[in-house]
């Protein structure tokens, strides 16, 4: 029954976070607007040339998701910290991993919604046609989002309780996320071109490996990080 209890706790934490988000909407709306702003800025940086913009779309899309997502990760412990509620939450019986799982789940939903908006915006802004491989593309988006959210939620637990959290979280997170970003960008690029070289599968398996490694590592290490 232990697993079932943990799952109920995780779900309760995720539900609480998402409800708070749904009722205010301020967080999501501003992060989504920022995601679109970043895409527009990439458009300016890459020039009005349609071909160049289209070629850069996968990179711009994932970086926009990353930059906007970091704000979400930094916010994810904010409500508890401001209300002094993190310590009481930790004092509840049950594994602390369920707290991490809950935060992870809430951030995952948040990032998926964010990516839905960013993907649609980049289709329009970067003149990308929806390819026939779109189900595989959705799979890549899911795997990439898991990678971003796993380490994002984990490092936010440290960074948001330190001084200078605005700098610290991206500084810790971005170099660690290099494999996810590379794999997600390259897989997206390949799939948008119809995956004629059959590269996307290799990148997707790298994403699966990365997600598996860091999901296990973060669950093992979270107890040490969240303690008092």
């Amino acid at each position, binding site marked *: 029954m232990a697993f079932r209890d943990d799952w109920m706790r995780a779900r309760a934490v995720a539900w609480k976070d998402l409800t708070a988000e749904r009722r205010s909407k301020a967080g999501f709306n501003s992060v989504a607007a920022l995601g679109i702003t970043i895409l527009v800025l990439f458009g300016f940086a890459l020039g009005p040339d349609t071909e160049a913009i289209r070629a850069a779309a996968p990179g711009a899309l994932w970086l926009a998701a990353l930059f906007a997502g970091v704000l979400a990760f930094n916010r994810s412990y904010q409500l508890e910290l401001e209300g002094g509620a993190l310590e009481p939450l930790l004092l509840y019986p049950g594994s602390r991993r369920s707290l991490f799982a809950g935060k992870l789940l809430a951030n995952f939903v948040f990032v998926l919604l964010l990516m839905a908006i960013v993907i649609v915006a980049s289709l329009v802004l970067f003149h990308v046609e929806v390819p026939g491989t779109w189900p595989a593309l959705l799979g890549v988006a899911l795997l990439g989002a898991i990678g971003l959210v796993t*380490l994002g939620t*984990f*490092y936010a637990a*440290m*960074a948001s309780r*330190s*001084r*200078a959290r605005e*700098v*610290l979280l991206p*500084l*810790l997170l*971005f*170099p*660690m996320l*290099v*494999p996810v970003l*590379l*794999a997600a960008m*390259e897989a997206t690029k390949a799939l948008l071109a119809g995956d004629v*070289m059959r*590269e996307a599968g*290799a*990148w997707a398996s*790298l994403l699966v*490996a*990365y997600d598996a*490694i*860091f999901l296990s*590592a973060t669950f093992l*290490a979270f*107890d*040490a*990080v969240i*303690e*008092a």
Partner: protein
Amino acid sequence: MTTAAVPNILEPPRPGRWAWFGVFTFAFLVAAQAISIAISPPDRDMGDLQKILYIHVPAAWNMGICYLLVAVYSFRYLWKRDERHDLIAASAAEVGTVLNGLTLALGMIWGRPTWGVWWTWDARLTSTLIMFLVFAGYLALRAFVEEPERRARWSAAAGIFGAINYPVVYMSVRWWRTLHQVQSSPGTLDPNYTLSLRLNAFAILFLCIYFIRRRYEAALTERVAEQTLQAAALGGSARG
């Protein structure tokens, strides 16, 4: 996790023979450099530029040893909760990051005349740069967290994750490159140069050990001073 509430009372480091080890280290380094400059002929293509190899390659190897130490002592800290292990991990990270920067800088100085560019997005170069950034993050994390117990736990996690990430970063960058173009290899080493390289590898290894020890002593002394001040403020003595 109940032990975490009771802080370890640390002993200040004993100087021992480390000062002599330092003298030996620097003498060995100077000798190794002198020997390698004397006995290795100028390279056919690179000329005397090849001498950069005797710091660049040992620095890269020892950087790997330092990062391995960070991972090992971070594990040991999380396992035993002995604060000294955290301080050793931090010292190894500092020395490793310096060697990492040295590797990159010397590589660039060598690469400019040899390849014609300061930088190329080769798998080894790129993953070395990423490691530098990962451990710069590790050191920033330590700088921004004051509470020693919390700093130790957090940086242990960051250190282990950084080490786990290295092979994945290397793999991903290599794929990224090789799917597009053939990777250039710097060429294998002439047997004439191996003795010099080995000597210098040991010289940098000794230097690495010496620096880690010194940084560790400094960090430990700092912590002992903090604990003594705390104990004095509480009206007692930390050690009887």
